[in-house]
């Protein structure tokens, strides 16, 4: 039937991605190439994290840090819109604002302690380099969240359970944060720290701050009468309450996504 045959030129196997931490930064000449533009920065954060780390240690790293910060803000705003599409209405702008602000606030709150832990561990890093790594971590986390956005959107359009959607967003956030923290960990290897135990403790603290931020800035998934709730709560007790309310609500009487449903999340 299809007798015409040809021998296509062989496709070369692409170079393997270098495992991080096996060579000093800058050993690969490709890492010396400056990173230009937001798309270039996104590409590098995903595919060439060592290049980002090397460039962050160069004298003129301010532009790259700003680019990473812009990526983190824009991506978190986009993901926030997807989160807001569960309830629509005011949540379409409130959820993106809260997610972007929460992420930046968490990083800002934790940045000083990270610098202190890094110095205590013997790392030779300046504050600006540590801040650069944190922006890289945030950029990677939020870029990954954009990857999860279509999946989250499909679920948000079909389910009415705020607890289920909250759980799903939490799972996506934790997965993305894992890769972000892995980037940070790899970056700190090149600061020649004697010990990484301080960094591990900091990661735990950062995670707790982020989780608490989801409760402090509630409601992010559901709706409410006011932009922020004044009642103080620990995130675990807030989640427990949400799950209890879901269990007590019969499936046929599941609350609407908007209107009075916000009270379910308070």
């Amino acid at each position, binding site marked *: *039937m*299809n007798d*015409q*045959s*040809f*021998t*296509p030129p*062989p*496709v070369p*196997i*692409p*170079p*393997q*991605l270098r*495992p991080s931490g096996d060579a000093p930064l800058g050993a690969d000449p490709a890492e010396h190439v400056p990173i230009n533009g937001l798309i270039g920065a996104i590409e590098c954060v*995903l*595919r060439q994290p060592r290049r980002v780390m090397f460039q962050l240690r160069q004298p003129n790293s301010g532009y790259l840090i700003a680019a990473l910060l812009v990526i983190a803000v824009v991506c978190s705003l986009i993901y926030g819109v997807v989160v807001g599409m569960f309830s629509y209405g005011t949540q379409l702008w409130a959820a993106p604002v809260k997610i972007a602000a929460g992420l930046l606030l968490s990083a800002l709150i934790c940045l000083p302690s990270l610098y202190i832990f890094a110095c205590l561990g013997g790392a030779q890093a300046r504050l600006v380099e540590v801040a650069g790594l944190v922006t890289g971590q945030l950029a990677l986390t939020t*870029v*990954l969240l*954009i*990857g*999860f*956005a*279509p*999946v989250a959107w*499909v*679920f948000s*359009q*079909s*389910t*009415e*359970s705020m607890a*289920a959607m909250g759980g799903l967003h939490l799972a996506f956030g934790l997965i993305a944060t894992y*890769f972000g923290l892995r980037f940070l960990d790899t970056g700190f290897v090149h600061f020649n720290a004697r010990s990484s135990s301080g960094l591990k403790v900091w990661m735990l603290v950062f995670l707790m701050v982020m989780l608490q931020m989801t409760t402090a800035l509630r409601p992010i998934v559901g709706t409410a009468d006011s932009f922020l709730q004044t009642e103080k709560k620990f995130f675990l007790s807030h989640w427990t309450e949400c799950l209890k309310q879901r*269990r007590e609500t019969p*499936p046929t009487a599941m609350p609407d996504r908007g209107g009075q449903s916000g009270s379910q999340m308070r």
Partner: protein
Amino acid sequence: MSCQVKMPAPLWPFGQVSLLLRAEPVSMRQWVTRAQPERVLFCVAAVGVGAGLYGVAMGCWRDALQALYTGIKLPLVILLTTLGNGLLNGMLAPLLGLNLTFRQSLMAVLTTFTIATVMLGAFSPLAAFVVWNTAPLTGATRLPSVEYGFLQLTHVVFIASAGIMGNHCLVPLLRQWSGSASVAYKALVAWLAVNLLLGSQIAWVLRPFIWDPARPVEFIGPEYLRGSFYETVFDATRRLFFP
């Protein structure tokens, strides 16, 4: 040289189905790397035909219209899952140590789905035979009926087998590409997990595929956009263990 593989001219490459099914790393690498439009079109057509045929066999237990709808919906589930997860799969690949571009990862996932649906297409006569031998749908048939449960289980086995085999075909390529079996399996498991997550929800939204006793035959019922697959599983598990 081992890289010199005779391939048919890519006009309308039906002959390449056998190449895909053999899953030799060299030919798979060429297929994935040179994602020409006709190859993408071929994959989409193969998914449409393979999954469509299986869908027809699946839905014909109820009636001809259900067979037509399922024949359209099953390929839709696969294509929407591939597209919906394209971005995420492309991001996960380099993060897990696989040097694939976004386009290559999309093509790799589409290729595995193509292989799986070609298998499904081949299983469709078997599925039709099973349906033909199953007690027909009557007014007395209920959701807990044995024949309905048997059909559900049969389709799950067929679809799961095709999916597992389709994904397994990608392992040699990923292993060669990454130079590490561990990286290859990590990437494959990550892709499988996210495809399962989204695919099951899309299938949930597009149900019923076999039969719904409460509704007439319709493409997507009004209540199917409510709830999620995982909530239902969670609730069922909770009722089972904590009645």
